[in-house]
């Protein structure tokens, strides 16, 4: 039987507010345990929550960026359950009236575009952390994270493969960092993904029973976990076992998912509107203010790049993979002069040499040791034929290694392309004189011999001769 995978994602994004969603404590990561936990965060008797407007503002921006409905009346609910790192015994969240509903996000997989629908995004507070190591049979509780604002973004089950899920997660990651509402740091837990995965026979309308993989903190784990889960579910069904709804965890060491709790063990969260927080009404002025603060979005930018610079959809997509990358591109163009040829050259170099060097060094475009203006200087020397593509790569490597700006490297290494036709002619004459056999073969109709002669000329010029000119001159001389 042929199987179809169905995936929906729930993503918890930590918002970039300075202080927590319901208290004034700092949200900075990495402080000593419980040093960023106020009376409100540790839920002392009598304390009350006060909503941080910054969290609302960020959620509005997200809603606008995905073309969603931003609900004008927001209600905060209590989700009740006991856990040591949940100080109040309930989490303040939004159940019935989330701030954002019905949005969409476009993804590309293997050149094919697809739209993923977003069901909702709601504000809630993060829990603290339980620390099981270093306490010898006891558990330590760190409440620094408790109360950090989260926007939980829930998609429809619109993805049909792990690749699509990863593409969606990446597009979402790009968007939330692009509009500045989340720092996107997955190691620190700023962007955490839960994947709801089910399978069904191809052609079947109804969804299969889903299992939820919790807390995936890298795109690689997301892909591995879904791939494993899909194989496991298909095997189960083919072996005659029904899938039971469950929550599972992914173990990166074994590459497997394992059961955390079954549906029967699911909590009754006893949601009800938090009486400590009145419904929050959003006025149009605030929404318009947020709309005005939104930058040009990735898809808008990509469309403009195609329109203005004739870039392919693929290249435009690459350049808008992150705001840092797009900013780098635009700064390079500013320095280079923004014409179509320059844009294509910049796009090629950014997705080629620069991207692979950054990748190897695990840096992003904002951290590039070669500044946009410096790359532009290098590209200028390609455009004016000072450098061949091959020499340009050498100069790039030297620049990366910190040997200075393009012109300085060219000067120091004597890498200037030889375009003086007189000088090239002299080398060609010497080569022809020294290789009568090749000349003879060429005249006898062997095209290969021409290439050998070009190679000899390039070698004699130590790679600096302009290859186009070498071709022309050789052809002329051999014909003569």
């Amino acid at each position, binding site marked *: 039987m042929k199987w179809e995978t169905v995936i929906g994602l729930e993503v918890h994004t930590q918002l970039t507010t300075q202080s927590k969603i319901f208290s004034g404590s700092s949200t900075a990561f990495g402080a000593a345990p419980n040093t960023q936990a106020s*009376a409100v965060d540790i839920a*002392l008797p*009598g304390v009350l929550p*006060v909503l941080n407007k910054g969290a609302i503002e960020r959620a509005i921006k997200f809603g606008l960026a995905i073309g969603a409905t931003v609900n004008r009346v927001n209600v905060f609910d209590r989700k*009740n359950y006991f856990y040591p790192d949940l100080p*109040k015994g309930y989490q303040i969240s939004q159940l019935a009236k989330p701030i954002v509903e019905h949005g969409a996000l476009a993804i590309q997989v293997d050149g094919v575009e697809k739209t993923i629908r977003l069901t909702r995004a709601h504000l809630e507070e993060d829990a603290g952390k339980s620390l099981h190591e270093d306490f010898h049979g006891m558990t330590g509780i760190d409440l620094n994270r408790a109360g950090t604002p989260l926007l939980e973004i829930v998609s429809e089950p619109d993805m049909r493969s792990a690749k699509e899920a990863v593409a969606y997660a990446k597009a979402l990651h790009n968007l939330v960092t692009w509009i500045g509402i989340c720092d996107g740091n997955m190691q620190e837990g700023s962007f955490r993904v839960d994947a709801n995965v089910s399978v069904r026979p191809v052609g079947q309308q109804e969804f299969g029973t889903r299992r939820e993989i919790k807390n995936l903190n890298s795109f690689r784990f997301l892909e591995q976990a879904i791939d494993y889960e899909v194989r496991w579910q298909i095997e189960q069904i083919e072996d005659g076992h029904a899938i039971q709804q469950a929550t599972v965890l992914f173990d990166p060491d074994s590459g497997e998912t394992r059961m955390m709790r079954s549906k029967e063990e699911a909590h009754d969260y006893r949601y009800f509107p938090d*009486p*400590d927080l009145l419904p929050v009404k959003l006025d149009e002025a605030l929404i318009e203010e947020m709309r005005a603060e939104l930058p040009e979005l990735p898809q808008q930018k990509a469309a403009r790049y195609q329109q203005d610079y004739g870039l392919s959809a693929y290249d435009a997509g690459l350049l808008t993979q992150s705001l840092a990358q797009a900013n780098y591109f635009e700064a390079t163009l500013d320095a280079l002069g923004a014409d179509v040829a320059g844009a294509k050259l910049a796009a090629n170099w950014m997705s080629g040499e620069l991207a692979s060097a950054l990748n190897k060094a695990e840096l992003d475009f904002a951290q590039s040791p070669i500044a946009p203006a410096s790359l532009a200087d290098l590209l200028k020397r390609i455009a004016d034929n000072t450098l061949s593509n091959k020499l340009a790569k050498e100069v790039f490597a030297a620049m990366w290694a910190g040997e200075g700006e393009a012109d300085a490297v060219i000067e120091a290494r004597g890498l200037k392309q030889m375009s003086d036709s007189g000088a090239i002619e002299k080398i060609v004459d010497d080569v022809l004189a020294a290789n009568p056999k090749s000349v003879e073969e060429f005249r006898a109709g062997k095209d290969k011999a021409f290439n050998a002669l070009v190679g000899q000329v390039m070698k004699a010029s130590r790679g600096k001769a302009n290859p186009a000119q070498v071709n022309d001159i050789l052809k002329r001389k051999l014909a003569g």
Partner: protein
Amino acid sequence: MIDSSLKQLAAALAAKQISSTELAALFLDRIEALNPRLNAFITVDRERTLAEARQADARLAAGETGALLGVPVAHKDIFCADGWRTTCGSKMLGNFVAPYDATVIAKFKAAGTVSLGKTNMDEFAMGSSNETSFFGAVKNPWSDAAVPGGSSGGSAAAVAARLAPAATGTDTGGSIRQPASLCGISGLKPTYGVCSRYGMIAFASSLDQAGPMAPSAEDCALLLNAMAGFDERDSTSLPREPEDYSRDLDQPLAGLRIGLPKEFFAAGLSAEVAQAVEAAIAEYQKLGAQTVEVSLPNMGLSVPVYYVLAPAEASSNLSRFDGVRYGHRASDYKDLLDMYEKSRAEGFGAEVKRRIMIGTYVLSHGYYDAYYLQAQKIRRLIAADFAAAFKQCDVILGPTAPTPAFNFGEKAADPVAMYLSDIYTIAVNLAGLPGMSIPCGFSGNGRPIGLQLIGDLFAEAKLLNVAHQYQLVTDWHRRLPPLGEASGARR
């Protein structure tokens, strides 16, 4: 001196007739002598109180003035007060020393009052007789056999016995008004949102409200001036301009329209209480007020609605008492669940457990719509009843409680009978309105009877005016309980 009004005390302090330290010592001595019998206080800390009094004296010496500067006040043990043990009447918080001040406490400190200690109360404010306190019941100063009412029974008894000139209370379903009625003092529950709830240990967040308890309405007005005000730390606190709640005390009552809800004068009201209230109505008519019959048709639903909503909120509010970070933790447990279960089983008393279970049940999946949501709808109807009534009258008048103080044990075994002792007060909380109880007579066996006045939203000054004018022509609020010592009419 122990029988002086707050105004008189402040004047004596300002005139240097007595120092705040001397005044505090006077009441501390009285507490020491009488509290073993009344059990009105859970925590008394003489040194801490005298230190606060010395600070007040320093402010007085520096020429500072204030309506309450140097005046001692007792605080219900539901308010967190920095450095004071704050128990909420529960074993769960028996060892909890608050590291911060509730806003109400901070405001009293700013006004220069001196804390005489923390008063006894029903556990987590859940009770109408003070019998649910982990620290033992408070005795009604008028009779050792009688309950003081609840949950602010300690504050009511302390004021009635003049162990404190005034006290704070909180009122979720009648917890200021009913004990005020049973102990023969004045108590005001303000409009929801007038006093900050920050630092007041939550029972039912949408109903809880702090208020003053004192012998007279005039005293209550001065206390409310100190307590009230917007607080950015409480999202349900109302951003309103500060007002002087004493401003209308002396207004005459000629032309005042008093609404008498027919539902308040129906079955269940004791004859003695009915008689005292009728006499009070006659007194008001003499003062020039008119009466008009009004109706609150949904009032009969207020007790069941309350016992859905309040336990629902409480079940969630009390989840934080889990033994993890503070408060009682069982000494012996095998795992996390066992720790939760044992700590909470040991830390909470029977009434608190009952309400947590009711609340958990009504919020459960499949029951929420039938109970919680339905109760919220009826709550709106009850509020609409009051709004309609206030189109016909300026204040609503009736009994505070159906009977005078009952005896210990009389209702403790029957929760519903106990819940019905708040039948006239609960609707006021559900509607968020201000309500007041003032003394209006005594039963045949010498127990106080209270008169309830209910105002429209933000009508505190009006209520205080109506209460004060009555107190100018009656002396019920000046009577002192027979505590086996020299007593007499107040002032």
